[in-house]
């Protein structure tokens, strides 16, 4: 059981990271709130000792990904459609960002993960392989395909073909 100060520090440091992963996996705010709280409560009761902040961050990413997958894979979730489904998730206010985000979200899950981890968190393929528990070559392949698919999607949407 961690202290309230520790929990508060983690919330300040990793709230956005967890929120972003929720964003690229979950479709509604209720689920996001659910997973967000689950992850931080897990941190609160976890006795894992972290060697560094990087280690801690990787833990948060791993736990959030697992929690999202658990939720999406649950029988209840796969058979129901919450009313809030129609509500668009907040965030990403700017139209430009919104378009890119929608393009990312239109990709399969496996591509979204590598795009986020590589382009935003700056992880290398071997680091991603560890976090996602996949072969390094698989990561390279996924990353290559994700880039291609995103590019195609953005071009298809007519978004800044000159910038892509």
């Amino acid at each position, binding site marked *: *059981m961690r202290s*309230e100060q520790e*929990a*508060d520090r983690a*919330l300040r440091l990793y*709230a*956005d990271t*967890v*929120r*972003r992963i929720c*964003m690229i996996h979950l479709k509604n705010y209720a689920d*996001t*709130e659910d997973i*967000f*709280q689950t992850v*931080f*409560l897990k941190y*609160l*009761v976890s006795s894992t000792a972290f060697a560094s902040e990087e280690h801690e961050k990787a833990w948060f990413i791993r736990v959030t990904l697992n929690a999202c997958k658990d939720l999406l894979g649950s029988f209840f979730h796969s058979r129901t459609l919450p009313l809030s489904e129609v509500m668009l998730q*907040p*965030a*990403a*206010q*700017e139209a*430009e*960002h919104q378009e*890119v*985000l929608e393009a*990312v979200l239109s990709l399969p899950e496996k591509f979204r993960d590598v*795009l*986020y981890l590589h*382009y*935003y968190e700056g992880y290398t393929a071997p680091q991603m392989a560890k976090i996602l528990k996949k072969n390094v070559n698989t990561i390279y392949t996924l990353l290559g395909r994700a*880039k291609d698919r*995103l*590019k195609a999607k*953005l071009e298809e949407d007519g978004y*800044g073909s000159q*910038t*892509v």
Partner: protein
Amino acid sequence: MDHKLYETFDSIHAESALVAHTRAAMGAAGRVRNRGRMRVAAVAACLAVLLVGSGGWVYMTPVSAINIETNPPIELGVNRFDRVVSVSGGDTLQSEDGIKFSSYEDAVDQILSDPGLADVPELSIAVTGGSEMLNSVENCASAHRNVYCCSGSEEELAAAEAAGLPLGKYQMLLALQAFDPSITVQQVAGMTMRQLRDELALLSGETDENAGYQGQGNGYGTGDGSGNGYGTGDGSGNGYGTGDGSGYGYGTSNGGHHSEKHHSE
């Protein structure tokens, strides 16, 4: 595209409401956990107090008593573990230290060896702890002269106290009154145990030996060979045993008094 992707992801932030809710949930979880821990701690503390309390109560409750009839009498409360847990009226003792919480045998031994009791002519010890305790106390007392032990119930002890007599004398009074109802408490109080026993023997027509009462103070000599003397007489009688061997002397008299001498080497 790399930059655009970065900016897009960077534009996503955890909503302040989401963070606030999560912070509240974590605080509540911490409090619940702490409350649970405090509850466990409280229950454990209660149990510990209960255990120590009941253990202490069991240990500190006297279940039998040893009354040593000095003036004022010393009363030792003995718990179920044969330990002395209370000492009252030990004013005549020069040192009371070490009596409390020692075994009652040690305590009796220590009290009887106390220099403050050296000049007491006769001591009576009353035990309410049954025959086993009486035997043990008799064993302790056998090393000392003129100590009489007897055992009785709480009720007898209370009755003896009411009559103002040591339990041994009270029992003697009852026995004597069975033969001679005119004998009073005052008479008994003024006599020694030895005299009382002789009196009883006289009244019951039995000798000291088969009267069924045993008193410490008979002299025994041990050694090689044997020799004994036996004397009776009217008015006074004395008996003594001399010799290199064991001598055992006793005397009975019609006059109610007798003296005895023992010599042993």
